[in-house]
């Protein structure tokens, strides 16, 4: 078999934003874990939607409404196929991962009793901690934390010990946004199911790098945000197993989610519409489908191989800087490198490299518990995508060196 490689020059031309300058320097965009950039192919789909068939879906009999509905539903099918989901009505369009999680957390209110337990991993994004805390406040359930070790890996022995018949829900990210760790989600799902607990996996950070087969994983819920995988902001999905989605009460009331309404009683629409109240982000959904087409055109396996090589190179090069420490050294990780230089605040490094045209994230990455664990105020985080190059890695390393010379 011939291994497909990635034509980096051709790919970079697909992303108009990569041509721009920042502070008089060519942009080096290394904040892909926060949001990925958008290829022209997806931008074209967005423009085309507003130029040709902008209309409200599932309502009108007119042609534009039909075309918009068809395109939106076609996107749902693309997502279904991409993640190997059994039924397209198990794909719920949301505004993104945060809303997807809140939908489940709110829905679980009626399923939990005082003393029930929710397990959450220690390496979660704030958006993954707060909804469960709120759920616990509403129900009297208890939040338990799956600990991690210094490499940024979950301590699986501890996880297995935490599981009991009190465990009703386990929540974990597929890939940590702050550390890049790929978590052993299959082991987590199987073990949780043995005690009868449901599992929600946040795939926001994983989806651009790993093609998840949701039926093979046997996961109960999985969330994705389009903007982390070359799609637009403000749209994402909640995958839920049909049996769960049928049980969960509607999240929001509004148009589209109803079958019949009188002032006495409303009957809710079937899946997926029960969870899609109001006019959705129609254009966003369609563009999400286009983003998947774009990424699959290259191949997620090809992308993953290229990124792994890039991250390995970046890791080696960054470690040549004296005093630089990388946080998150898990055996399995994707394209995130979180680091600090001894004696320098991450904000200072971020500020200086920004002046050199390099976009990195600094701070706690909405994962304060991780920073508390390492007893640091934050890190500098460089996160890579398939359109980044080794030359850009070199610029990052030079920039960090220059910042270090200035700051120490």
């Amino acid at each position, binding site marked *: 078999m011939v291994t497909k490689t990635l034509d980096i020059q051709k790919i970079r031309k697909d992303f108009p934003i990569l041509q721009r300058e920042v*502070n008089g320097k060519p942009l080096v965009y290394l904040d892909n874990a926060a949001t990925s950039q958008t290829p022209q192919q997806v931008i074209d789909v967005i423009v085309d939607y507003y130029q040709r068939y902008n209309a409200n879906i599932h309502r009108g009999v007119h042609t534009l409404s039909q075309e918009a509905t068809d395109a939106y539903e076609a996107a749902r099918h693309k997502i279904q196929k991409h993640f190997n989901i059994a039924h397209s009505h198990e794909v719920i369009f949301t505004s993104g991962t945060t809303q997807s999680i809140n939908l489940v957390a709110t829905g679980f209110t009626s399923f939990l009793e005082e003393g029930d337990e929710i397990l959450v991993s220690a390496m979660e994004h704030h958006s993954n901690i707060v909804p469960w805390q709120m759920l616990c406040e509403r129900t009297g359930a208890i939040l338990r934390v799956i600990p991690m070790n210094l490499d940024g890996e979950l301590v699986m022995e501890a996880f297995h010990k935490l599981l009991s018949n009190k465990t009703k829900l386990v929540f974990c990210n597929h890939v940590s946004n702050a550390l890049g760790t790929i978590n052993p989600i299959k082991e987590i799902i199987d073990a949780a199911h043995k005690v009868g607990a449901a599992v929600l996996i946040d795939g926001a950070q994983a989806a651009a790098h790993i093609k998840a087969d949701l039926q093979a994983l046997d996961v109960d819920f999985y969330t994705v945000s389009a903007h982390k995988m070359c799609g637009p902001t403000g749209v994402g999905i909640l995958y839920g197993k049909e049996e769960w989605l049928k049980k969960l009460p509607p999240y929001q009331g509004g148009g589209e989610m109803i079958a019949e309404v009188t002032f006495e009683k409303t009957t809710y629409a079937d899946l997926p519409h029960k969870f899609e109240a109001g006019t959705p982000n129609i254009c966003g959904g369609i563009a999400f489908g286009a983003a998947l087409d774009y990424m699959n055109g290259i191949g997620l396996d090809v992308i993953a191989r290229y990124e792994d090589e890039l991250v390995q190179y970046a890791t080696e090069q960054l470690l040549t800087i004296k005093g630089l420490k990388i946080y998150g050294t898990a055996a399995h990780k994707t394209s995130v490198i979180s680091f600090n230089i001894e004696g*320098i*605040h991450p904000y*200072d490094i*971020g*500020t200086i490299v*920004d002046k050199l045209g390099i976009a990195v994230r600094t*701070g706690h990455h909405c994962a304060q518990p991780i920073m508390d664990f390492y007893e640091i*105020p934050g890190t500098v985080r460089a996160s890579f995508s398939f359109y980044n190059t080794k030359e850009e890695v070199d610029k990052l390393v030079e920039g960090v060196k220059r910042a270090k010379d200035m700051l120490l």
Partner: protein
Amino acid sequence: MTIKEIQEDIIDEFSMFDDWMQRYEYMIELGKSLPLIEEQYKTDDNLIKGCQSKVWVHAELDGDKLVFTADSDAIITKGIIAILIRAFSNQKPQDIIDADTEFIDEIGLKEHLSPTRANGLVSMVKQLKLYAIAYQTQLK
């Protein structure tokens, strides 16, 4: 020197640099000369809210003048607070209350900071003025 005169000096100094890397280098130098707060005053009460890096400011009266000391865990933030303290420290509280802060815009500081840092800068100025108001009441 009056606050206005000091501010004009700062504007002059910043206009000598060609690019923002040089300005940052200068700010880092200024940060190193910041009159440091005594450890005992590095308390949560003296932490300025709205800054993403930690900034502590302490104020005390020396005669009829207010003297500021400060510290931060980030060096560029230290530079920013050093500029502010240079402009406002060792001045009468009423003068601090009355002083305008346009020099910050004139040296282009705000537009060259990330929004979170710019917010932090606004919080710092506000905090210095709040100290001035508190001590002005005390003086009366």
